[in-house]
């Protein structure tokens, strides 16, 4: 009784408008945030209720049992549990628009690459690091051991399963104990670099390359992605006899694979190419790259989206090094990697300044942007798309607990964000669904709902390099996929 009186007494003293004011603030924050001004149809609301019930279940359990909250750990520690999540299953089935930041060599996972090692004419060098090469004779390139035919080595292996497991390990960064294997960014990028060196000669054998990209498009479509802008260093393809082709041939192979795929799957919107060579080069080579970009643009304008520079940003050349040439290359669209770093106030960090000043259409990662209020305003004003890759940033040692990923700031400010996956094959992630799931449950607000997911999907088309007419078509196409997802949605099936 005394308690009751106390409560009555104190409530009388309270500002009667307090909770109204409070609600206004919480709601206004949601309204300002990405997806906040979207309204849902009644059927979408039903889907949203189902989605949010499962999201709250997951998050409220995690809030009360943080020891069981996987997403605060390294991706490798929880990735195998993701498919159990109902939220994930819904996201998997949901049309997600486009992938705008992905590197061609790391799209499909290690099992696919292992299969390639069963092909004829493959030589292997079992050194400290395993190297491969397709050839019609024993390769004469250096090998710290000796070149042998893969088929013979495999036949000679006592246990083929164990042998294949060992080979498969070369095609993935995934390990059981990531905190020990990858204590810092140094070890991670070393492993990541080795991954590319191993994969490169397997994929760049011309017949494989054409098939590989076709299969990659299939993987995107299977993950409910219908358009892609792929970054490529345009590796020089080769034949069994050692013939090496120019970069333009690689670009043509892309064109061919895309055509074939679209003939087979007419509901696929398409793909474009961002020429993205390594940033660790001198100015002369960069000029050659710009020449190549122009050449491809001229001969295949519908394929070519623009130009970028890749490789570990801290270890490569900063953009400022190439500003004179990039300023002069006015006829190219830029999609620069910038600010994929934790180093505040360094040259890598200031790549963000140059990306903005050079007029980049989108920025890859922009992880450091939240520390740059002036740039952040410019990004918003100029509507420069931010290609955010949460799983990549976690695997590549920028952030451990994804709740500390700056994406949550970008979302709360409604910056032009698109979600992408960077190199999903290298860490055995989905083409896009894992990134969507982790961003939605681990990074975004607990209160972020279907409107955020739909806006992110729409953003991926809005900020794509499609020309206006094609963009309109792509968005119409997305809405029809989306509507059928909504119409056919049955909460009981999750």
């Amino acid at each position, binding site marked *: 009784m005394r308690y009751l009186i106390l409560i009555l007494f104190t409530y009388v003293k309270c500002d009667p408008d307090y909770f109204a004011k409070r609600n206004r603030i919480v709601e206004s924050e949601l309204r300002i945030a990405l997806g906040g001004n979207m309204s849902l149809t009644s059927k979408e609301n039903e889907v949203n209720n189902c989605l949010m019930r499962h999201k709250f279940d997951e998050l409220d359990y995690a809030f009360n049992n943080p020891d069981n909250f996987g997403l605060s750990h390294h991706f490798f520690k929880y990735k195998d549990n993701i498919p159990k999540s109902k939220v994930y299953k819904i996201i998997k089935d949901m049309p997600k628009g486009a992938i705008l930041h992905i590197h061609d060599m790391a799209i499909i996972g290690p099992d696919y690459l292992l299969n390639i090692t069963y092909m004829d004419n493959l030589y292997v060098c079992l050194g400290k690091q395993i190297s491969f090469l397709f050839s019609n004779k024993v390769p004469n390139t250096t090998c710290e051991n000796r070149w042998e035919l893969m088929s013979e080595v495999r036949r000679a292996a006592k246990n083929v399963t164990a042998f294949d497991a060992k080979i498969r390990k070369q095609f993935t960064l995934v390990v059981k104990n990531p905190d020990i294997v990858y204590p810092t*960014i140094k*070890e991670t990028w070393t492993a990541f670099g080795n991954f590319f060196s191993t994969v490169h000669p397997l994929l760049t054998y011309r017949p494989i390359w054409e098939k590989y990209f076709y299969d990659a498009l299939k993987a995107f479509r299977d993950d409910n992605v219908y358009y892609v802008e792929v970054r490529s260093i345009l590796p020089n393809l080769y034949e069994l006899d050692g013939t090496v082709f120019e970069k333009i041939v690689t670009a043509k192979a892309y064109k061919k694979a895309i055509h074939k795929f679209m003939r087979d799957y007419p509901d696929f919107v398409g793909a474009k190419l961002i020429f993205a060579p390594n940033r660790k080069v001198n100015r002369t080579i960069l000029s050659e790259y710009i020449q190549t970009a122009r050449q491809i643009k001229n001969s295949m304008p519908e394929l070519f989206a623009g130009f970028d520079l890749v490789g570990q940003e801290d270890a490569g050349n900063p953009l400022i090094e190439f500003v004179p040439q990039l*300023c002069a290359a006015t006829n190219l669209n830029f999609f620069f990697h910038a600010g994929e770093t*934790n180093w505040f106030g360094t040259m890598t960090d200031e790549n963000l300044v140059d990306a903005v000043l050079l007029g980049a259409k989108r920025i890859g990662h922009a992880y450091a942007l939240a520390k740059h209020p*002036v740039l952040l305003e410019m990004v918003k004003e100029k509507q420069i798309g931010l290609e955010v890759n949460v799983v990549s940033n976690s695997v590549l040692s920028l952030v451990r*607990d994804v709740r500390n990923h700056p994406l949550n700031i970008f979302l709360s400010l409604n910056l032009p964000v698109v979600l992408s996956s960077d190199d999903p094959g290298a860490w055995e992630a989905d083409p896009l669904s894992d990134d969507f799931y982790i961003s939605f449950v681990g990074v975004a607000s607990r*209160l972020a709902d279907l409107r955020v997911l739909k806006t992110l999907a729409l953003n991926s088309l809005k900020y794509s390099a499609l020309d206006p007419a094609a963009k309109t078509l792509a968005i119409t196409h997305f809405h029809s996929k989306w509507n059928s997802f909504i119409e056919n949605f049955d909460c009981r099936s999750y």
Partner: protein
Amino acid sequence: MLTLAYTTLALLVTITARTIPDNYNQERRALLAEETLTSVGGKQKLNDEETRANEILMKLKTNELNASYFNPQHFNFSKHYFSYKKDIEKSRVYQIIRSMPKGAVLHVHSSLMLHPDILVKLTYEEYLYACYTHDSIKLQFSKATPARPCANKWALVSELRNNSSDPNAFDAHLRDYFTLYRENEDYDYVDINTVWKRFNKVYYAIKSLITYRPVREKYWYETLKQFYNDNVMYIEVRSGLPDLYELDGTKHGKRYLVELYKNGTDKFIEEHPDFIGIKLILTRDRAQSINHVLEAINVTRQLKAEMPDLIAGFDLVGQEDLGRPLSDFIPILSEAKEEINLYLHAGETAWLGTSTDENLVDAILLGSKRIGHGYALTKHPSLMSALIKKDIALEVNVISNVVLSLVHDVRNHPLATYLALGLPVVLSSDDPGAWSAEPLSHDFFVAFMGVASKRADLRMLKQLAINSIVYSALEEDRKSRLFAVFYDRWDRFIKDVISNESYRDLEVS
């Protein structure tokens, strides 16, 4: 002719392609200058001597950070604080920060301020009994064996120590109960609840030692000495005012501890006249009932009426995710704020969109004078605007957030964003004793080297120290005195840096 024109044009293109266009450079410089101007300390003007000291500081900072940038496998700040703690002493930047006047500490909890080495010395007091269980310890001063239950058995610490084969090892083991820090253990990644359980154990062990009145007096004196030696001239201490006891079992009420703090501090000021003093922010555990919190507010009100200079205000403490959200206490807090200033913990969480996260909304609506931690604030743009408009300072405790499992690599700490935005930030240390940190210098060092921009310099450090005075609860006259003491020490600090022989090689022009 056409060929000539083409060649000339090509030549021109080549030449321009070798240099950065002037307007590009101008725009770039202007942009970076605007970012610096926006950031904390960006508007500070340095005099000639300060400029020279800054050059020395920045040479050292750049050298140390470059070494890390090119060898990230050795970069310490990306790892847990415990893995690099003992290397901090080696940093020359740290030596400067240690000797720099840092103003005030505004966010620190009374029982966890003192280094465990000194706590161990306090266990040499007579009549101390210990009750060891497998992973915790209870201490009590008593003439006879304490009557309180003990799962094992009560024994005199002096006897245990004398009987042990190695008293140093005995003390080292005892010290482990007073700190989360372990020197030679790889720190595993534990979740927030597990680490808070360990943290609470440390707290209870220390509390059982320092609720004995004679020990508390010594504890307080030693604490002030450590903060003073770390160049801190004023402290606002959060305290729950536990009852103290005497050897004969007599208990003292809350008022007694307030007076003990006051008398102890007055005595310290007599010996150290440039120490300005303390204020208390009284607290209650947020996990407790509304009635209990109301009771604590009433005690605060009463004590503030009696000792207005000493009592700064009220706060709720304890693990925020597990305690009650502020919204549970709105009626009593909005009534209290008419008479008592609030200094609320809020948003000490990584959970966006949860009740803990929304404590930030309530802290601002309740007119909190400052916000403890505000870790989640960067995710709330409109709250950030409100904070700037109302000039509410954020008490940021970087090392605490690492140790208590909010962030791993400090470069991801939101302080970087607060600094870039020029928010009203003060640096503090929360519970430095509980992780064997220096009173404030470690937090300044990690914030300056690990979190702030590589370009952040002496202006930022000075601004942070000034902020701690500006946003303190001091009344005007003592605030001016603190400023006078600070500037006096600051001038001497600058002179020491520029006249220090060991920096001769670094000075540029």
